[in-house]
């Protein structure tokens, strides 16, 4: 089992769009995926037409495997389930680290409840908190969308220094450029600079700014479902290939 956290300490950078499309790409590749909507706004669930759960705001929620598994919803896509938002995700990090331990009681309970996923993708809320810190520890990879602007550069700097001060393993950080507009000189320059500055932190794939991604809101589905031949669909597929297989497609 592998845990991928989609994180940025800034809102509106494309975390949710990335989580949704990555989760879909993993499921299409034949893996079983649980997409956890950790953001109270519940946008990830929205894209899969899964209604946020109302009742499950119990603080002790993650101590109880049964309640956890009962709140999972199947998406319309084979192998892809959603854990809806609106829950108190306190202790979720502890839950996650127990999940990875093959011999833990939790792991065994999840296996027998049919909740043993190949991949868990976390759509995280944008702030530094103890939850984020612990999720950084639990995750195998932290995928960070970065819009190539001066402001985003500053936020990414903050994230890297946070890792430094907390002595967190920086190799987990997988940044990529999000909402890229190649017509904009500023975008191209910023990308150039940041790639030099953080050579090891950045993936080669990037996601262009595309109207098709915005249209996910009307279609309430991953891009590849309603625009399978779009540039955005290809870009998310390439991002998946690089994260999962380290394959860099020539684009």
């Amino acid at each position, binding site marked *: 089992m592998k845990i991928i956290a989609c994180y940025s300490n800034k809102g509106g950078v494309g975390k949710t769009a990335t989580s949704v499309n990555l989760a879909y790409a993993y499921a299409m590749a034949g893996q079983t995926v649980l997409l956890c909507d950790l953001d109270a706004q519940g946008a990830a669930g929205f894209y*899969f*037409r899964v209604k946020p759960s109302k009742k499950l705001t119990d603080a002790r929620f993650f101590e109880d495997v049964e309640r956890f598994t009962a*709140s999972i919803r199947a998406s*319309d896509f084979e192998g892809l389930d959603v854990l809806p938002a609106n829950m108190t995700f306190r202790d979720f990090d502890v839950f996650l680290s127990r999940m990875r331990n093959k011999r833990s009681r939790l792991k065994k309970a999840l296996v027998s*409840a049919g909740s043993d996923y190949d991949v868990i993708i976390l759509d995280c809320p944008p702030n530094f908190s103890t939850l984020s810190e612990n999720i950084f520890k639990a995750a195998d990879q932290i995928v960070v969308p970065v819009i190539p602007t001066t402001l985003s550069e500053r936020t990414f700097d903050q994230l890297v220094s946070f890792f430094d001060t907390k002595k967190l393993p920086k190799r987990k950080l997988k940044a990529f450029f999000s909402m890229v507009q190649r017509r904009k000189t500023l975008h191209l320059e910023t990308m150039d600079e940041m790639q030099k500055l953080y050579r090891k932190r950045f993936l080669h794939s990037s996601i262009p700014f595309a109207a098709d991604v915005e249209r996910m809101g009307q279609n309430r589905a991953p891009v590849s479902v309603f625009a399978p031949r779009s540039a955005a669909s290809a870009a998310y597929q390439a991002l998946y290939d690089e994260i999962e297989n380290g394959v860099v497609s020539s684009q």
Partner: protein
Amino acid sequence: MALVECFFVIPGAFDEAWFSGGLKGLDPRFEDAKPAQGFEILDCHDQSLRASGKVLIESGGTLRLLHAGEPVTQRCKGKGKFAQDLPKGPVRDGLAGFPKLRALMSMGAGQLENRSFAILDDLQKTQVRGSMMTLSSDYGQVSLVAVQPMRGYDRSFQAVCGKFDEMAAGATGTEPLFQALFPNLVVYKAKPQISIGTQEPSIEVATDIIRTYLAVARQNEAGVLADIDTEFLHDYRVSLRRVRSVISLFKGVFSPDQTTALKREFSDLMAPTGRVRDLDVYLLEKDDYFDLIPPNLHEGAKAMFAQFEKERAQALSSLSRRFRTASYDQQMNDLAALFSDHGNLQPGENADRAAYEYACALIWKRYRKVCKLARRITPDTPDDDVHELRIDCKKLRYLMEFFAPLFNAKAFKTIIKPLKKLQDNLGLFNDFSVQQEALLRFVAQQSNNQGRANAQIAMSVGGLIAVLNQRQRTERDRVVANFQHFDSPEIRHLFRSLFHKKEG
């Protein structure tokens, strides 16, 4: 608790509007049906699968086996094949226990349509999925529905299942499918139940049994002609043999003249079937024969079986010709008419004896005879006496089966068990001796005027005879022990109390 896939059988035309109307807040979407395909329901002649609650559907080169609604599929054809000869797969596994000697044949045909459906909520999110297979015949329609739960949508799943359940209106298992599609399909029974009254005149009992088995025999003719499997001819012969044994064992029920005439008529009816049956038996044992002799004798055995196969084809085609003649059909119709009413028959001196009293007398007498013969058997008794014992056991068994409805079923079961064991033993003893004789005859046939036979064939046959003789001896040695089982104080007591009360 995780919900599992549910299955429903919905007889009649599927009312989509009614179904959709009954689901509050949910919106069912039925996909357009895929192009219709022909289908056939496969089973064997006595509908073993149907009796075990299963349905086997062949369509477009795929077999689909339904058991308790749950389908398994395998890509292969099945019609005309034996279950154990199908390629390995889930359908073959599901057919374990299917009669080994019975071939799969078509029980009925029609058209089949598959389509899937999704049940959506107000956000157009799928909450339940499923698929529906609609089968139609000239007589009616039935839809087989499979409903899959989706994680986290238990309530909708239960609502949808509830709706289908209402539409199924209590129809479960596979019987409604047969009722809807093939309501006129006759269930073949090799041994139908025949009710007998204790005071019923024996001539009526005899007539009922004969009429029933004449009909059973006729139900096998088509299968013999189509050469579907060997059991058609076997059942045909067994039915006629039952008729013959009623005529000979129910002494004095019909007039002496009619008894003689009927005996001859039924012997004549059976005579042309004997050769095909013998050859069927040899061919069924082919693999066992090869196992009896070492590989260096296989060449001759191969030649022998090739000869048997040729001969069987000839014998069957002449039997088939006979079955197709108008005179045969006329003869069978005449017999059916004759036995349609006991008033058509000439009564003998025992015609009016009450069934129960008559049965007791016949069975008691035959039982005494079996015991007398069996108790005399020692290692030195000639084989002919053992053969005689076999025939009397068979007669006793027939009598007990004919009159079984008059007696306590549990007591009969207790008696039949050791009797059957003894009979199996005697049957094998007889088979081995008949086979040796047949092999000797075969070599004689294959020999030229100087009595010289093909060396390979002769060697194989010699080898076989040696083994068969050995086996016959072994069976012979078991007879005494098996009879002693049958001759236990408990069984003796049962016989006396069931059939010989007056003096008991």
